[in-house]
């Protein structure tokens, strides 16, 4: 087949177009990938695409500079070294007043690279314009319904009780009227009062009445003792908090260690409730905008004195008054650092698995604690003295492993008294806390 010169030229031309188009697409993909990589490596620490952070948002920044009357190319100079740009361009000088935090200099970034970054940023969709789907909305409604049902249950029983009483009285009245009507000796019947009649009735059915009264008296006694036993049982105590704090979100999904917020747990008697500046370490950025929990985070901002719009602290603070959940009586001494550092007890032994706790913190019932893998299984109610004592009797103390001078010394002395050591080990093959004085009254009460 013969092809004329013109035809072949056309063919080459169209081929060239295709090649150029493919090349352009590939290049733009490459450029945007390059822009994303550079943005994440160089800019993302301080800048976000559509939200002000340490630095201003970068979306549309090129257009903004152009519209604001910045000199040609001044934006590239700014990225390379903002001070040079601020000295050369009045608009850049104005921009430098945006925040007291100075921008780092990036002298290595070339003009094309800066363009790639800004083009990639401009290509990103604004998350605020994408309608947020409220997660767990249906679940929350379901939970409320369950709570309402439980609430109304006791009312149902109350109403039923009242109906019972009314029915008893009504039937009693009808019975009396019937008796009066059918009575042969009207005068005698007339004389009987309600009380006398009741007594007569009780005597007539004395066996049944006696049995029922016995049951009632016994159940009253049982109830009395049960309520006496429930005195000072903290299980299930779940005080409402000023901020609905979901532990599952923080310690579970986001993997924050317990010790980050409760940071004195290894140093002090108290595990500490974090001060609001610790909350702000993350929530300075996480403002929950458009999420259902945004009002909760607003409370943190109010407490920390953080002005979200102006991105600055105002200095007007107000403490968050949390309600302490695990409260021990004043005459009990409990030290967190002793248990966590020396004893090596995990938080979940006493507080349960907080990574799964979607509600506010509560005193977990001992049955819940026993379900957790690795926990020492106990039978007494959480936070009672029996519970402490039981654990002191079960928990083995790692003595003589060279990690704790105090226990190493005990180990050394025990070795000098093999009989006592053998006695300690014989019961259960381990040295437990109570054998080292964990059951001494003065350990906790002084």
């Amino acid at each position, binding site marked *: 087949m013969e092809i004329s010169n013109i035809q072949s030229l056309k063919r080459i031309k169209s081929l060239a177009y295709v090649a150029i188009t493919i090349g352009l697409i590939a290049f733009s993909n490459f450029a945007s990938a390059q822009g994303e990589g550079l943005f994440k490596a160089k800019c993302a620490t301080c800048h976000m695409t559509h939200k002000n952070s340490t630095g201003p948002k970068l979306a549309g920044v090129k257009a903004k500079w152009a519209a604001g009357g910045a000199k040609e190319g001044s934006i590239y100079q700014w990225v390379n070294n903002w001070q040079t740009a601020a000295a050369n361009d009045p608009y850049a000088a104005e921009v430098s007043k945006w925040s007291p935090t100075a921008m780092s200099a990036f002298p290595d970034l070339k003009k094309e690279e800066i363009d790639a970054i800004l083009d990639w940023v401009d290509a990103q969709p604004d998350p605020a314009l994408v309608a947020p789907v409220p997660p767990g909305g249906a679940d929350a409604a379901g939970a409320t319904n369950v709570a309402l049902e439980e609430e109304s249950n006791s009312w149902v029983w109350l109403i*039923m009780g009242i109906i019972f009483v009314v029915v008893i009285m009504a039937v009693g009245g009808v019975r009396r009227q019937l008796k009066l009507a059918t009575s042969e000796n009207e005068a005698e019947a007339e004389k009987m009062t309600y009380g006398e009649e009741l007594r007569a009735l009780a005597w007539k059915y004395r066996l*049944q009445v006696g049995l029922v009264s016995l049951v009632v008296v016994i159940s009253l006694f049982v109830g009395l003792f049960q309520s006496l036993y429930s005195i000072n049982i903290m299980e299930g*105590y779940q005080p409402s908090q000023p901020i609905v704090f979901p532990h599952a979100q923080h310690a579970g999904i*986001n*993997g*924050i260690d317990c*010790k980050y917020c409760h940071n004195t747990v290894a140093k002090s008697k108290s595990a500490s*409730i974090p001060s609001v500046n610790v909350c702000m370490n993350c929530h300075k950025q996480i403002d929950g905008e458009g999420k259902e929990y945004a009002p909760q985070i607003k409370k943190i901002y109010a407490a920390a004195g953080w002005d979200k719009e102006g991105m600055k602290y105002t200095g007007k603070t107000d*403490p968050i008054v949390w309600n*302490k959940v695990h409260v021990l009586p004043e005459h009990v001494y409990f030290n967190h650092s002793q248990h966590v550092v020396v004893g090596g007890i995990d938080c979940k032994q006493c507080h349960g698995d907080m990574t799964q706790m979607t509600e506010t913190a509560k005193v977990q019932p001992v049955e819940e604690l026993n379900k957790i893998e690795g926990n020492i299984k106990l039978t007494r109610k959480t936070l009672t003295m029996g519970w402490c004592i039981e654990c002191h009797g079960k928990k083995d103390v790692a003595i003589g492993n060279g990690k704790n001078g105090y226990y190493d010394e005990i180990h050394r002395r025990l070795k000098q008294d093999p009989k006592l050591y053998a006695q300690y080990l014989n019961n259960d093959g381990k040295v437990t806390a109570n054998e080292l004085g964990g059951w001494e009254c003065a350990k906790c009460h002084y």
Partner: protein
Amino acid sequence: MKKFVYTAFSGAALTMSLLLNSCVSNTDSPGLEYAPDMYRTPGIETFVDYGEVRGREHKAWKGRLSAMTPPRNTIPFYGTDSSEVKLMLPYFRKPNVAFRETHGLYGWDYSSADEYTLAVGDKNPLLLSATTSEAVLTKGKELFTAMCQHCHGEKGDGNGPMVLSGAYAGVPNYVGLAATEGQMFYSIYYGKGMMGAHGSILNKKEIWTIIHHIRRLQDANYGKFDASGAAVVATVSDTTNAN
């Protein structure tokens, strides 16, 4: 008739017991106590402040006095070991005035100089030696896991669980970070950019210990010593201490 009496009685008993039960199921109430005056201290204990003054409860004070910042210029007691005490004395670099608005550090003494830049030459006063190095670095890793890892990631690449879950963004990679160890200390203590000040939750010794671990993350040979006892990475022990 008999049946009716039984039903009436059992119904009443059931109602009563349920009523009693519903009284104690209020999760906001800690329940009954044996002797509240023995249980609740009028003195203020950490996070347990009943707002009681001379037998009277002050609702407005309740819970407000127990969690407060220590008074200014007070120094915690760190024992009697002189090298430890020296290490724990207050950090000599001051924050800039700008830290008030950016990191909420109101009420501090401020410096007008750019102290972050000045901190470039500060050296870690916790010296590593062939014998102590691994213990310090193990402790550093432990602290890092508790305090930093959720954002900065186990490997220090800025991909911690918080970043991976999409909750937080913009955590830099330690490898290629321009900051020197003195500047790392300044940043951890007073905060930098989005990162808050961690001086309130970590003491100076802990921060320097963490910095040892960060440098190990940057360079796997950091803190390692060869058979002759010489440091593999030269900058490990420097005699010019910063405090």
